[in-house]
């Protein structure tokens, strides 16, 4: 059955963007909660690399190479590898390396990624709705 929403590459891509942004916010929230925990190390993942992985998966699903069948939709997203992005030299003397300004900046940035993705999906949904309305006339 052809599904206008989940078979739409734009909406699928926006969905991945929103999921990855949410996961990153979860890590930022952990970092901020543990800002005064001795020995805690900042956690993050490479957003660009994780998004690239998801885009390649969607490419295989929506535009298969000639000769090979389209791969089925893979549910969920590949869990990105957790990294410790802060240089060990900026660590405080209690062994904690959470940087308040860095986390605040990333929080705002990731929030905009989420809003941008959801706006993209909304625009695409409007387009689909417009097409249905035109056809119904």
């Amino acid at each position: 059955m052809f599904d206008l929403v989940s078979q739409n590459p734009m909406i699928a891509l926006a969905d991945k963007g929103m999921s990855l942004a949410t996961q990153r916010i979860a890590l930022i929230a952990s970092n901020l909660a543990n800002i005064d925990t001795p020995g805690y190390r900042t956690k993050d993942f490479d957003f660009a690399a994780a998004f690239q992985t998801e885009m390649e998966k969607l490419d295989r699903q929506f535009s298969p190479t000639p000769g090979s069948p389209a791969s089925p939709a893979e549910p969920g997203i590949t869990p990105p590898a957790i990294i410790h992005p802060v240089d060990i030299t900026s660590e405080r003397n209690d062994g904690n390396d959470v940087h308040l300004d860095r986390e605040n900046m990333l929080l705002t940035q990731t929030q905009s990624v989420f809003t941008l993705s959801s706006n993209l999906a909304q625009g695409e949904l409007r387009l689909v709705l417009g097409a249905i309305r035109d056809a119904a006339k």
Partner: protein
Amino acid sequence: MSTFDAINTIAASGLAAQRLRAQLVASNIANAETTRTPQGGPFRRKDAVFSVETLGMGPNGVPITGVKVAEIRASQDPFLTKFDPGHPDADASGIVQYPNVNPVEEMVNLTEASRGFDANASVVRAVRTMTLSAQDLLRVT
């Protein structure tokens, strides 16, 4: 547990931990001159020790780590002494032992706790904005 719920739980653990810390600072400052406690002797400065708390796994294998107060530690620093023979708690040589509370140190702790609290509050705000923009997806017309 949805990821949004998980993020709010993490931020809530941070808010609770920093609030408790501010509460300890308040009680330290309030008792800066207290020379009598139920345990006997002057008041001892108290401080919170934080530790990582794993709240489980997120939907995609991302661990959900919040924070918890591992212990409330009473400072073992020496008490401040002051010569005040008229004080009821003065010893034979007229010395009174006052709590080991340093007001300057407490103010630094308070600022740090309030900054940490604000950071966690901004996470809650960010989640709210994101939830609203996700809700907007239903408003297509």
